[in-house]
């Protein structure tokens, strides 16, 4: 019997399993037929020949269910022949005495064929349904990968893994690289090593013309991989390369269909991710703009306010018509001077802040004594500290720290300035220094109202100011700059609330270890 399903095509190396399966289906049919014939032979003395036909019909039906169309047709034909041979007189010949049995044979053959056809269709439909279910499950899995991964790179990773699992092939994704004028860039895969210029050209062609290319197609058929364009309504988003499809055998029709479904889904998904990335960038840009506007508003207010006083004072001094006495003039000038100082302080802080943010601060570190740093900071604050009680507790054995003297003085002055502003004028301020293992802790503690617990983590943020009942002038930059400076030194800064109220700002800076001995040795 010729079996047209078996095609001895040398390329189909993966078919032996399938061929054996075909053979088995026919063997089952044959077995069933032999069984039916034996059974009919055993009961032939009790049953009329027409009832034996029923055994054969049953056999045809079972063959159709188990083996499909081919085996069941085979069984139908064999059944007619065997029925004639064994059960119709004269026995053991194909001759027929009673010509009416010719009709029986034809009917048996037709019924057998019809049963075969109907049963096999049911089978095919079941098979198709199962395939569709598998396909749906595979696509669903890929869709879920998208939901889980979220960003492009991990999604591509998931696609590569998923296709390797379901189709057994390595996959490389080619996406246009935004950094190099849309030139295709290969993503993912352990198989990335095999990409040469020819492969890249094939991928590029496929991307440009939105057509398949590479192995098994008409274009670039010498390429090692098959290139499938990922196309959406907006155009191609990339190319998916199926590595070496020839070595593993051609894909089956279902696999081809699954692959098509994959490319469609992947194309749409990648486009979706790219669009949402773009959207996010736009949103970030908008938020940044909003923040900048807010900052600009805040800064321009802070910049203009002192100028209003300065210009006002100068113009009133300039006007000859206004009769100002000396005391009034002195008072006005005092205000203008303070405001100008405030403006200078603000501009310095803004410059520092931008230098820190731009990473433009270069430290000129030198071994510095904590007491000297504190003294210079107090000196910088000038008259503002001379009226306050300041308790300095810096033990003489406190080690030196290697810091940029000017910057740390600036930091201490900023923190002291806050302590002065946010505590009652008659309350003392404490400055303490302690060595704790290889670090020096410098604490500046005031006896003011302290910082609300929920504000503690934010006090070092830029432009962050705690809402206070009394309106204290400031920009909210001082502590942010201090943090920047301390961190550039490899240290930390912390804000705490004191046990008996008030704020403690703690600077933690590393001890200047390598040079510590030199000074002592040469001393005196």
């Amino acid at each position: 019997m010729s079996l047209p399903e078996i095609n001895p095509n040398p390329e189909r190396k993966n078919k032996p399993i399938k061929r054996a399966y075909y053979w088995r289906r026919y063997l089952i049919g044959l077995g069933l037929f032999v069984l039916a014939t034996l059974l009919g032979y055993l009961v032939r003395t009790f049953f009329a020949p027409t009832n034996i036909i029923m055994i054969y019909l049953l056999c045809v039906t079972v063959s159709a269910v188990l083996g499909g169309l081919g085996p069941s047709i085979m069984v139908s034909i064999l059944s007619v022949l065997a029925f004639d041979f064994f059960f119709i007189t004269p026995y053991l010949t194909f001759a027929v005495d009673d010509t009416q049995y010719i009709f029986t044979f034809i009917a048996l053959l037709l019924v057998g064929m019809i049963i075969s056809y109907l049963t096999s269709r049911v089978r095919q439909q079941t098979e198709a349904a199962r395939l569709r279910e598998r396909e749906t499950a595979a696509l669903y899995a890929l869709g879920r990968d998208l939901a889980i991964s979220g960003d492009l790179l991990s999604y591509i990773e998931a696609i590569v893994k998923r296709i390797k699992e379901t189709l057994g092939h390595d996959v490389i994704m080619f996406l246009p690289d935004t950094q190099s004028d849309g030139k295709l860039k290969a993503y993912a895969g352990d198989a990335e090593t095999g990409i040469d210029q020819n492969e890249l050209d094939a991928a590029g062609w496929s991307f440009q013309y939105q057509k398949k290319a590479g192995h098994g197609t008409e274009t670039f058929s010498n390429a090692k991989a098959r290139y499938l364009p990922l196309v959406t309504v907006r155009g191609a988003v990339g190319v998916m390369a199926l590595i070496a499809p020839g070595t593993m055998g051609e894909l089956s029709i279902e696999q081809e269909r699954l692959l098509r479904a994959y490319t469609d889904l992947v194309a749409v998904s990648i486009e979706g991710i790219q669009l949402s990335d773009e959207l996010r960038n736009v949103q970030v840009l908008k938020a940044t703009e909003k923040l900048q506007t807010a900052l600009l508003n805040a800064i321009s207010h802070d910049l203009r306010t002192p100028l209003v006083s300065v210009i006002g004072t100068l113009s009133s001094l300039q006007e000859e018509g206004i009769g100002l006495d000396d005391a009034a003039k002195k008072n006005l000038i005092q205000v203008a001077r303070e405001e100008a100082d405030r403006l200078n302080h603000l501009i310095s802080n803004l410059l520092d802040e931008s230098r820190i943010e731009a990473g433009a601060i270069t430290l000129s570190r030198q071994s510095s004594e904590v007491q000297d740093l504190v003294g210079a900071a107090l000196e910088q604050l000038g008259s503002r500290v001379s009226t306050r009680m300041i308790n300095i507790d810096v033990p003489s054995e406190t080690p030196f720290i290697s810091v940029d003297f000017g910057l740390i003085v600036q930091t201490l002055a900023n923190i002291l300035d806050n302590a002065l502003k946010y505590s009652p004028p008659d309350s003392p301020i404490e400055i303490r220094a302690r060595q704790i293992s290889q670090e020096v802790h410098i604490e500046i503690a005031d006896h003011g109202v302290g910082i609300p617990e929920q504000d503690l983590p934010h006090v070092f943020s830029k432009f962050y100011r705690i809402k206070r009942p009394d309106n204290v002038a400031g920009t909210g930059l001082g502590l942010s700059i201090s943090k920047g400076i301390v961190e550039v030194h490899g240290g930390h800064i912390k804000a705490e609330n004191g046990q008996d109220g008030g704020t403690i700002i703690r600077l933690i800076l590393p001890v200047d270890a390598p040079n510590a001995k030199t000074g002592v040795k040469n001393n005196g």
Partner: protein
Amino acid sequence: MGNTKVLVVDDEASIRRFLRVTLTSQTYTVFEAASGKEALSRVAEDKPDIVVLDLSLPDIDGIEVTRLLREWTQKPIIILSVRGAENDKIAALDAGADDYLTKPFGVGELLARLRAALRRAEKTSGDPVFISGSLKVDLSRRLVTVAGNEVPLTPNEYGLLRVLVTHAGKVLTHRHLLHEVWGAEYGDEFHMLHVNISNLRRKVEPDPARPQLILTEPGVGYRLKISE
């Protein structure tokens, strides 16, 4: 003081104007220069008693101007610079400038620096005895007393104090002090200098945590305060 001549070197016309008005009202005679080259010729022609020199000039920078002036004159030079330009300040001081002011500055501060620099320049014969507050240093007898009590100093501490006293009121850079006391090969041993200053302060300052005599010029050096 009516004939004390000041040369103001700054490329900003508004700053020159502000300084001229202020200094003229204080009976100084004011000359102006807007560039480094102009400054050099002005010093030669007008022979000012003191120069107020901005560091950032359009042609030759202030450090170079200082160096060129120091080749032939010892007239005091006060540097004007912006905050953050510590290295330029140090370079100008090492090149021979006497003092510096950070812009923006108050007039009171400027006048005080001018007076101090002029007084240092006038002092021709070295007076061996220096007195500031409770500190008395007699260089001829190598004797240092605080409130009348002799203070024992190590040779390096005394060396430091001697350099500070001979340049009293002037800003001395770290490197300058190290050169004078320890020698050129110790030019980078800042730590050693700080340790000795710290020890010296503990011996001569009434409150070492808030020095009144040996003042720190942040990032630049030290200055011995002279009593006004």
